[in-house]
């Protein structure tokens, strides 16, 4: 930041004046505490004066002192330290009061704490402890506190609960859970064969294969050891997945099937988009890219079962298959491949479009055939993108909740076991152990990726197009790939069509008589719940986008201590599986002054911190296209950062912010894993209601709700497209969303 504090250490009134005055207003008017879960906006009995008289007077006094200090033209350094001292002292007192009287914070206490933190930020800026202007310093303090409280703290709580049971450190729960047949079991003592021997046999074979392959290529010792180990691990996972049982083995095995398949299809689509002559391909692909986002969870799963399940129209009626083969790893894998391929495609799209055609042309001029160009030039260039897409789908597959819960049959999966441990067996510690395992797995994968690819992020921002043209695909290949895409499109159309059809017939698959009964039944509770869901999603989308915007701005445009910690922590919630975050919120915010479970706010927060990383990425992408010279020009004209933000950056980023809000809203409407633990009376959400309908066999009603949701969300996205075309200067306002 250039010349951030032009008038530092000179005498003038402080920016802390406004929060200091608001502090008194908030404490005077808003209910300081709440007796029960719901928040109230007006209740005279609960304001600080009536609940904690001395604390109220302390707050009024400090507000007055802070206001006077801010208003007078005092030496900045001394005043800064005074602001820091008073605000931190008073906020600690407020917190101590809440904790010691075990009262739950209300809007008044919240307002007081926020105002005090703002004052603290101004103080930090005026003393020069944070080398920025007051607005930036306050933002850093607030964002830091929010991220710590709602991402780092809950995750810490999950890890803590897995080793601390009833207040005492013990590894017993961990050992008990990890040795339970639900977690992992290899040996089945009821079969004559020894599964353990088989599994380790396969693992050894994998290791030998890995060693052999690299040995033949005369690789270095390090690489040789690496592939041997990887071969052994992969062999073990396959063996344990096929012959063993339990959540750990099943989830890893599933991810191992899903990730390569998904990346393969994603790559096909991305290449097809770039190098195909037919226009319809691009049209289909643009739909493929949107669909997974607007599809409520479970829809693909139950439509798939309708077509390919034990009694599926195709498997049973056409091919006469009559087993329950579909429930279990097979069905979940098919559903996940369908659901995640668009994600892999969107991830790969950036890298494919960032390829430089000149390199391929050079290879062609040197008489390489197309296959050699592909394997020696294109593929190696795509390696980072492929790795990113692969790891992303591994994480998605491990974290997926909706497909395993519907199609998993009685096999256990890590993400569903977190849920069943908490809701079915009510054992928060066991749930925490599963959560910790899942978290460690995901973080290990991310760590491996970092070690392997360096600091490449998952986002591949589209680079500048190079000169030259890509050669089109050979005809036969183009036709084959188009066939794959066509088949894919047909399958997807069949699935969505059947949901639509199912909502209008009496009993899906049994009685095909037309009826509107499901819509009538749905509108009973469904509409109210859907409205509530929209409310939660909207509030969370706005907050997530604004907070994400602020964090992205701080991280990319400002320098301060702890910048990379803020960035990493706020991205952490993206990698955390939803069920783990859900459990974390339930355990962390069910007691003490921070009681939030059972409220509207906890749902909003859960979605905010789920969607924020996506907003951060999209704003970062947008910011990287805006020259820093603009900020600097604004600063040199003596505009404070807040003005620069509001008058320069926000207007330039309107398309990103708008689409950020819409996409966060859509994701909020279709979220399930992070909110399933958090719904409460009056705060029931649509996806959770849909799950209970599906489980009890009210398929028609679930289909009706899905149809309403899909059409509604599709309408919103189309509106956004139309709107953003008008807004953006280059006509593509939606770059960087994915």
């Amino acid at each position, binding site marked *: 930041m250039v010349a951030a504090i032009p008038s530092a250490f000179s005498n003038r009134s402080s920016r802390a004046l406004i929060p200091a005055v608001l502090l008194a207003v908030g404490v005077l008017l808003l209910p300081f505490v709440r007796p029960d879960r719901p928040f109230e906006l007006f209740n005279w009995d609960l304001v600080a004066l009536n609940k904690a008289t001395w604390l109220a007077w302390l707050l009024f006094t400090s507000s007055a002192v802070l206001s006077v200090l801010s208003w007078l033209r005092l030496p900045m350094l001394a005043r800064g330290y005074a602001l820091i001292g008073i605000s931190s002292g008073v906020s600690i007192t407020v917190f101590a009061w809440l904790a010691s009287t075990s009262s739950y914070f209300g809007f008044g206490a919240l307002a007081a704490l926020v105002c005090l933190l703002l004052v603290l930020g101004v103080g930090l800026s005026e003393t020069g402890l944070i080398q920025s202007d007051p607005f930036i310093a306050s933002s850093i303090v607030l964002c830091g506190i929010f991220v710590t409280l709602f991402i780092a703290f809950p995750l810490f709580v999950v890890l803590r609960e897995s080793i601390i049971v009833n207040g005492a450190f013990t590894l017993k729960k961990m050992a008990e859970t990890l040795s339970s047949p639900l977690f992992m079991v290899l040996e089945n003592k009821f079969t004559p064969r020894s599964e353990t021997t088989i599994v380790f046999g396969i693992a050894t074979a994998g290791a030998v294969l890995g060693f052999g392959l690299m040995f033949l290529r005369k690789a270095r010792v390090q690489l040789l050891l690496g592939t041997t180990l990887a071969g052994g691990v992969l062999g073990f996972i396959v063996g344990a997945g096929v012959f063993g049982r339990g959540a750990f083995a099943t989830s890893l095995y599933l991810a191992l099937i899903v990730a390569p398949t998904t990346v393969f299809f994603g790559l096909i689509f991305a290449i097809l988009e770039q190098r195909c002559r037919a226009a319809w391909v691009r049209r289909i692909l643009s739909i493929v890219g949107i669909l997974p986002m607007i599809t409520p969870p479970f829809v693909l799963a139950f439509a798939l079962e309708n077509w390919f399940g*034990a*009694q599926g129209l195709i498997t049973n009626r056409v091919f006469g298959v009559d087993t329950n083969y579909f429930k279990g790893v097979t069905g979940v894998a098919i559903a996940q491949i369908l659901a995640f391929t668009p994600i892999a495609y969107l991830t790969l799209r950036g890298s494919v479009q960032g390829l430089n055609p000149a390199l391929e042309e050079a290879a062609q001029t040197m008489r390489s055939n197309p296959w050699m160009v592909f394997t020696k030039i294109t593929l190696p260039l795509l390696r980072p993108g492929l790795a990113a897409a692969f790891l992303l789908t591994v994480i998605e597959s491990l974290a997926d909740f909706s497909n395993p819960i519907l199609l998993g049959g009685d096999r256990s999966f890590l993400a569903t076991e977190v849920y*069943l441990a908490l809701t*079915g067996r009510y054992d928060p510690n066991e749930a925490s152990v599963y959560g910790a395992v899942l978290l460690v797995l995901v973080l290990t994968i991310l760590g491996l990726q970092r070690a392997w690819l360096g600091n490449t992020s998952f986002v591949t921002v589209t680079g500048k197009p190079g000169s030259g043209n890509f050669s089109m695909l050979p005809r036969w290949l183009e036709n084959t790939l188009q066939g794959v895409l066509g088949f894919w499109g047909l399958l997807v159309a069949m699935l969505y069509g059947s949901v639509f059809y199912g909502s209008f017939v009496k009993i899906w698959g049994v*009685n095909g008589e037309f009826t509107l009964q499901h819509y009538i039944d749905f509108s009973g509770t469904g509409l109210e719940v859907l409205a509530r869901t929209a409310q939660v999603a909207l509030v969370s989308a706005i907050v997530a986008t604004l907070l994400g915007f602020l964090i992205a701005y701080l991280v990319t445009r400002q320098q301060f201590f702890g910048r990379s910690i803020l960035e990493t922590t706020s991205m952490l919630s993206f990698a955390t599986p939803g069920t783990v975050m859900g459990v974390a919120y339930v355990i962390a915010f069910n*007691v003490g002054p921070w009681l939030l479970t059972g409220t509207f706010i906890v749902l909003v927060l859960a979605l905010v911190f789920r969607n924020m990383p996506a907003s951060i990425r999209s704003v970062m992408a947008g910011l990287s296209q805006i020259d820093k010279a603009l900020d600097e020009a604004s600063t040199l004209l003596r505009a404070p950062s807040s003005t620069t933000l509001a008058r320069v950056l926000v207007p330039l980023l309107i398309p990103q912010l708008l689409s950020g809000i819409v996409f966060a809203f859509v994701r909020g409407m279709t979220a399930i894993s992070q909110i399933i633990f958090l719904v409460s009376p009056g705060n029931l959400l649509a996806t959770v209601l849909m799950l209970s309908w599906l489980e009890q066999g009210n398929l028609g009603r679930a289909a009706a709700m899905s149809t309403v949701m899909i059409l509604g969300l599709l309408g919103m996205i189309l509106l956004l497209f139309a709107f953003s075309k008008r807004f953006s200067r280059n006509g593509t306002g939606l770059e960087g969303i994915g």
Partner: protein
Amino acid sequence: MRKKIARRGLVMGALALAAAAGIVSAQQKQVNVLCSVTLPWCEALGPAFQKETGIKLNFVRLSTAEGLARIRAEKANPTFDAWFGGTGDPHYEAWSNGLTTFYKVKDYENLRRDLRFAVGLSYVPIYQGILGIGINPNVFKAKNLPAVKCWSDLTKPVYKGQIQIANPNTSGTAYTFITTLITLMGEDKAFDLMAKMHPNVSEYTRSGVAPRVALGNGSAAIGIQFMHDMVEFKKQGFPIQIIAPCEGTGYEIGGLSLIKGTRNMENAKAFMDWAISPAAQSIGPKTGAYSLPSNIKTPVDDDTPNPKDFKLVTLDAKKWGNPTVRDPLIKRWTSEIFPLPR
């Protein structure tokens, strides 16, 4: 430019206000019910209750096991005031763990004597549901399967991969199945039967009501669950035939409990008084829940399975509801039956 910003600020302010209005729920008399019966029944309770008393009813539907888990999780700070429906054992467990308190509803004397005596002063019985076997006659005909008459028939290898029943880890229905078998033949023989039945089970579902879905669409020939849930599906048009096993069958006593430490005590009590009234109890059959009402004054719907027509075993509600009996049984099932090869 300034005007534009002002307008934007106004929009943001309006949004924030709307959000705040959403957060602050209306100050109205209300009762929060944890509802463990079928969803349509839960949905129908609210309007009827509000019409009668003017009190607004919020509910969340959770299966009985999940409900118990939730109440336990929120022990320090209950969100719910009353717990309506679901198998009795978890209601009993909740009471013996001090999560609920017994409230003698206004017309307690009108409830069936045998049900009242079975559960004592732990929870209020609201209905009785009878465990049964459902078959899909179409599948039986197509596959030429022999008829099912008894529990012991379920072990026959001809039914391989044809049975669905819930997992006792998550379902009270499946636990009732286990206790019924143990009452009939003793623990070891019961586990022997389940082990022999295991290869015939295609899937242990999460929810106790779920087997009827597979049964109705024909992916399973046999489903084991409470009869009243199958009656509803049968009436919707699914091909289902209900069988009472020859050895005798068990039952659930649906519970109604007052959550300990509720903040809406008066409203919760009003809800419970209302819930056992004939008017409230006849809501069940209208929404497709054909369990037998506990109030002797409630007219019994013709489609409701009535214990007069079946051989019932006597289940000791107090014994089986005790966690020290229940947990080892479920653990034994999880380690001895569930991992068996199929």
